[in-house]
Each structure stands twice: as structure tokens, then as C-alpha cells.
């Protein structure tokens, strides 16, 4: 359908407890007209992928500030593929060094949003890149 809202899962994988950014983004995307599912803190990749599957989201946004992104993000991407969710757009945000970005993109992350990214930039990117599904 053309005018239905895009559905986005905002997830906090791993053990860091810093979810201000995730909550600000969740609320900001709500204001941009997205339907945002927020999972809460300390999610395993398995929990995130199960939530993405059950909610049938268009986008999974991962917020990580712990430095564990090179472990957790590829794992989420791999599990998404294994469970038939390869068409879901994956983005990451938080504290992710530039040097790591190519490797993350290699494993399927469409974009990495660092500090200073505006809500509008994220929203525009998602609208432009989430695959239309029925």
C-alpha cells in the first residue's frame, strides 16, 4: 500500500544502558510519521530479530554506545538473513568509529548515523531506502 506508515524497530543490543539517543530518535521518528516499535534496553540479537519478525518491520535501527558493535551488528544482520528478513533495511547509530563503518556496510548495514545526525536526515534516508512491501 502506498500511504501506510513505515514501521521501524528501534533496538538497543548489548549491555550498555544509554538509551537517551534511542528514545530521542524513536520519538523523533514518531513525529515524522513513522510507526516506531521500541524494544527497551539490553536486547540480544535473537530478541531483536524475533521482534523484527513478529512486528514485520520495514527498518531495524540499532543503537550501540558500548563499543560492541562489531560483534552485535553482524550477528543481527546474519540472523535477519537466516530468518527470511533479508529485505529489512538495517541502520546503526551511536558511537561507531569511522574505521568500522566499511566493515558494517559490508555485512549489510545500509547507513551508520553518528553523533550530530538530525532526525530529519534519518527520516529522509529511511523513506528513500526502505523497500516498499505489501
Amino acid at each position: 500500500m502506498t500511504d501506510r506508515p513505515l514501521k521501524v524497530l528501534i533496538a538497543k543490543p548489548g549491555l550498555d544502558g544509554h538509551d537517551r539517543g534511542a528514545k530521542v530518535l524513536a520519538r523523533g521518528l514518531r513525529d515524522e510519521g513513522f510507526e516506531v516499535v521500541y524494544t527497551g534496553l539490553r536486547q540480544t540479537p535473537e530478541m531483536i530479530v524475533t521482534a523484527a519478525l513478529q512486528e514485520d518491520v520495514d527498518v531495524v535501527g540499532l543503537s550501540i554506545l558500548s563499543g560492541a558493535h562489531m560483534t552485535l551488528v553482524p550477528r543481527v544482520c546474519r540472523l535477519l538473513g537466516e530468518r527470511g528478513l533479508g529485505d529489512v533495511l538495517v541502520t546503526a547509530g551511536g558511537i561507531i568509529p569511522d574505521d568500522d563503518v566499511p566493515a558494517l556496510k559490508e555485512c549489510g548495514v545500509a547507513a551508520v548515523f553518528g553523533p550530530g545526525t538530525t532526525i530529519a536526515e534519518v527520516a529522509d534516508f529511511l523513506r528513500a531506502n526502505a523497500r516498499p512491501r505489501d
Partner: protein
Amino acid sequence: MADLRAPAVDEAAIAERANALCDAALAGDRRALARLLTAVENRSPLAEPALRRLYPLAGRAQLIGITGPPGAGKSTLVAALIAELRRAGRPVAVVAVDPSSPITGGALLGDRVRMQAYASDDGVFIRSMASRGHAGGLASATTAAAAVFDAAGFDVVLIETVGTGQSEVEVAATADTTVVVEAPEMGDEIQAIKAGLLEVADIIVVNKGDRPGAHRTASQLHAMLAGAPQEARPGKPVPKHPEVLVTTAANGEGVPELVAAVDRHRSGVAAADREAARLKRAEAQVWAVLVDRLHERVRSLEGAGSLSPAVEPGAASGRLGAGSNALAAERPAAGDLLRSVASHELDPYAAADAILSRLMAGTPPPEVRPRSR
């Protein structure tokens, strides 16, 4: 503006896809189930053939509505109910509704936060749903989503409403058992005898039982609700006599008792009342489809997602009752009607009647002329 005379999407192909999804979902494929729920929620073309296939398979699950004001602990209680029902080995589905923004259409669906412990349990399926402008505490697709879960073999479907005020009672028509969750000290006895939410409760739960005042609140509610007449007077509905329980959802206290009370309610409802409730649910569903159909037909007259006619030169050239069934001729006619209403030359009822008669008969509506002012 979408052209509605564009070649219709291939119905056979859609039916085939819907069937394939249903086959997979019924065989336990959770991805397919999620896709079906999306189709139902978005009213995609897949939804109708899928529901036609699945609806006859539904009707076995126990539908439990969980409603109450924001912050009373509905989601936490749902999580506690999942744990309790899973201990008994019963497959549980959840439809958790949160409000959509009336301004942007966006929504923050946060009920899942409290229910994340069941990711590896295939017997639990949680689906968040935005209300998308539907009033009444549910989304318009909630009942259909519950039927999909029911058909897919879930023994229990928990339906969590948006945080409700006093009058969002739609869940009572959807669920077999309606649980109203209150928090301690939410109001005095007068609140308990107001019309609305508490009236539709089959069970009342005072949650946050570890807070001071929980038991006092429960006994006040119990005392005020106990006064309802025991027998139905002729021609009046049977008054409900809800049990009042105290739970502490965060640690599971009182939750086994709640499950027992729900089961007791289900088996205690007289067959005649259960039949009446099912009829009521059927009526609500058929009405919803009728209203949808009407929306579709009216919109198809306009060809856009909105009832409002596009303001464009030439759009007003069509005449009401022009006598042609061609969509192209009807579109501007409905647009004319709307414009007449907008300018108060025509009242909304006359306009609606004109549109309706056109839809019903497929014939030109009676000549409705705007009053001259």
C-alpha cells in the same frame, strides 16, 4: 491522483499468494503469520482472501481483553499473564495497541518493552499495532488480527488496548472476557459507579498491589459494584458482577488467581449469553466491513485517499445526476456535492443520501439540488 480505471490487479495471483501465506502460517511459519497480520492491518489486497480462508478456522481461542488507564500496568500484567499461561503450556498471542498521533500519523509502540523475555519461545507471538485514527481503544484491524492468531492455533489471544479513559469500551465487544486494570487510589467510590469502562468489566484488577491503598481501592470497588441487581429485568441486559482482584504484575503476585478467574468467567457464562456476545462481535465486524466498503466506494468516486475533491479547474464541470455510471462522470459529481456542503448550500445528510443511493443502486441518485440561498 490515482487512476482507478487502471487495470485491476490480478485477482487470481493475489488469491494464490494469500493462500500460500495462509498455508505457511497454518503450518507454523511465523514469518508468514507476521506478513498476514501486516496485510490485515494495511487492508492490502491480500487481506480479504486470507481472512475468508482463515475466518472459518477461528472461533476456538480464548480472547482476553486487557484495558484500563495509561500507566495502570496493562503491559506488565500482559507479560505476567504470558508467563503464567506458558507455565500451563498454552500458546499465547498478544495484540498490543498504542495510539497513533492524530497530527502526524506516527506512533510509538512501547508495549513490547515489558514483554521481551519470550524471544526464544515459539509459543508466544507479540504484535504491536497503532490505532491509526480508530477511536474506541483498539485499531480497526484488531479483531481481524485476533481471528488470524485464533486460526493459527493460538489458545489464548491477549488484546491490550491503548490507555483508556472512561468510555473506550470497544474491547468488550471483541473479547470473551474483559479485564479492566486500575491502579490504587485512582478515584473514589463515585468513579466506580460512573457509566463506561467499569460497566463492561468482567473482571476488575487493582494492579500495583504492593502500593499502599491497593486493597482499600479493591474493597471500595467491590462494595460499589456489588449493588447491581442480580437478575436481569425483562428487556434489560444482565448486569455484570465483576470479580475484583488485586495483582502485583511486576512480581507475578495474584496472577495465577487472575488466570483462574478468567477461566471461571469463561466457563461460567451461560451458553445463551455467550451466543449473544458472539452475535454482538459478529455484528461489530460486519459493520466494520460495511463502513470500510462504504469508505472505499466513496473514495473511489473521488479517486484519492481523501474525501475532499481536488480543487482543480474543470473538476466542477460534472453535474449531479448526469446519468452516467462511468467513474469519470461520477467523480466530479461527488466533488460537487462536497463543495456544496463545504459552502453550506447543501446539508451533509442530503449529500450522504445522494452518494449512498448512487452506491446502492448503481443508478443515478435522485436529483438533489442545493437550496438556493
